[in-house]
């Protein structure tokens, strides 16, 4: 686990607003038959942040969300959501949830689905129509508001699911793969909705395997695999100091490359050599070492790892 998380743990909450909206320690889920989906998950999500929860398929992302929203019970560990133990009935008034498997009553219209959820939330009838209208406009379903859900495409159902997740005007929203059924325009719109939620102070727990999506909207991310947190922290910190360096160099012998391994492992291909272990401050030293070994350096191209590369690197290190 990265040192970023260790730092986060040391922050002592002082008031309701300072408390993490999600706090989990050692959250474990073992299904019947001994299949372990979560193996001691640790994480904290701060108020008002968009938190990306990343991991490969089968990493335990959806199980973690189901535990946090109270659909499943943990086998071990503890977790708090909005200051209450997970599963607390009253706290559910303050959260929204778009499930990975989003389906809504096909015999109801979009408006009726939202009204049903308003009833379940016991929201007052006054102002309800306006609230539903605003939500449907926000997710781009105004023109289909009276159509039965059975006639909706998968993408439209996902948009409706987003509206259902937001109908309570929640403090914390869990979005489990919220753009899986959407086209590029729809994905862009959902990202805008997420940004809008952040500006309103709503915390968003974004479960996704779309790393570019996470990179565009998340303040912090966690990478999990096999039910454990491998890394967690602000995106900038997670990616900082992680450079890939491409060098065009000639005239070096094999023994010189062995000596250069002290900067990191090298991949060589047609006059170019590449390593991902070199920080920006080490570049002059590296070039000097190459020149002193008799090499002729034609080009040095430093690039910052993107989230996908860093994600693969983290998974690689863990495996």
């Amino acid at each position, binding site marked *: 686990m990265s040192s970023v998380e260790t730092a986060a743990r040391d922050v002592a909450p002082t008031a309701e607003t300072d408390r993490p909206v999600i706090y989990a320690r050692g959250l474990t889920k073992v299904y019947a038959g001994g299949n372990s989906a979560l193996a001691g998950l640790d994480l904290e999500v701060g108020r008002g942040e968009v938190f990306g929860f990343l991991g490969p398929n089968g990493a335990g992302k959806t199980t973690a969300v189901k535990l946090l929203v109270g659909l499943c019970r943990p086998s071990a560990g503890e977790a708090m959501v909005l200051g209450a133990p997970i599963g607390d009935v009253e706290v559910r008034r303050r959260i929204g949830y778009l499930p990975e498997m989003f389906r809504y009553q096909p015999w109801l219209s979009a408006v009726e689905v939202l009204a049903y959820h308003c009833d379940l*939330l016991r929201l007052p009838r006054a102002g309800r129509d306006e609230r539903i209208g605003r939500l449907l406009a926000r997710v781009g379903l105004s023109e289909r508001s009276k159509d039965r859900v059975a006639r909706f495409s998968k993408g439209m159902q996902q948009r409706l699911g987003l509206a259902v997740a937001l109908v309570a005007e929640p403090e914390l929203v869990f979005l489990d793969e919220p753009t899986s059924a959407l086209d590029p325009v729809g994905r862009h719109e959902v990202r805008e909705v997420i940004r809008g939620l952040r500006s309103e102070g709503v915390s968003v727990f974004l479960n996704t395997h779309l790393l570019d999506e996470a990179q565009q909207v998340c303040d912090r991310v966690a990478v999990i695999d096999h039910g454990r947190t491998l890394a967690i922290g602000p995106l900038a910190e997670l990616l900082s100091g992680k450079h890939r360096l491409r060098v065009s160099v000639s005239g070096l012998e094999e023994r010189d490359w062995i000596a250069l391994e002290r900067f990191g492992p090298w991949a060589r291909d047609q006059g170019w050599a590449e390593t991902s272990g070199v920080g920006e401050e080490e570049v002059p030293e590296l070039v000097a070492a190459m020149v002193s070994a008799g090499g002729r350096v034609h080009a040095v191209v430093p690039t910052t790892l993107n989230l996908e590369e860093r994600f693969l690197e983290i998974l690689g290190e863990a495996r």
Partner: protein
Amino acid sequence: MNTIGVVARVTVKEASRRRLLAALAAISLAMVGLSAWGFSRFTRGAGVLPSGDARASTAAALIAFMFMFSFVICLSAVVIAAPAVSGELDSGVGQSVLVRPVRRWEVLLGKWCGMAAVVAAYGVAVGALEVLVVWAVSGYHPPNPAAAIAYLVFEGLVVLTLTLTLSTVLAPMTAGAVAVALFGAAWLAGVVGTIGSTLGIGSLQTAGRVARVVLPTDGLWHGAIWYLEPASLFDRVLGRGGGRIADPFTSSGGPPVAYVVWAAAWVLLVFAAAVHRFSRTEP
């Protein structure tokens, strides 16, 4: 409105929107119409029979029609309840509901109430319509049609509760198949018990009694029969007085109060089992 009422209302709306109510109404009207035609033909043609025989035959035919409607009520209960829990959870519809500030027992009770309202409304409507049509066409009316219809509805509620509970454990298709099989087995066990009574075979009699306790559908059906059949007429016409026995379409006596109480307790116990299971279900 509380959670139970909200869920019950949407459950009734589902039955309506899926055209279950319309389909049941259409097919039941057709069946009642057919029975009206049959009873009118019979009434005209039975003029040659002694009046007692004609009335007894009309009563027997009415019981047969009511048996058909009891079958439709119970199968409708199975069809409605089989996907009510596992189907919604499998499809994903249930997940967004269960994360609301609701307790699972409230959701389950709301569903039961909604489905029970559908089953009861159908049972009362079709039972009353059939009795009225037979009375209008033939002039015959059973001794206590309201009680008979109440037993029919009760039988439907037993099947509904059984299927709903199975739905918390089994996939919709399996829950439905098991419920129908158990309903059929209970009816057959009643027939076996009747054979045991007729032939004086104690073990078969006991099997029939046990079956009526384990699943009280057949016992309740015989309660409905008791209030549909004019006992004295049967005794006289069929010569069964004193020694008359029950069969799948006649009843030898009204159901004891204790049995009705047990059937109500059965519904509560089986529903409690459903709540217990549903509270531990992880979608």
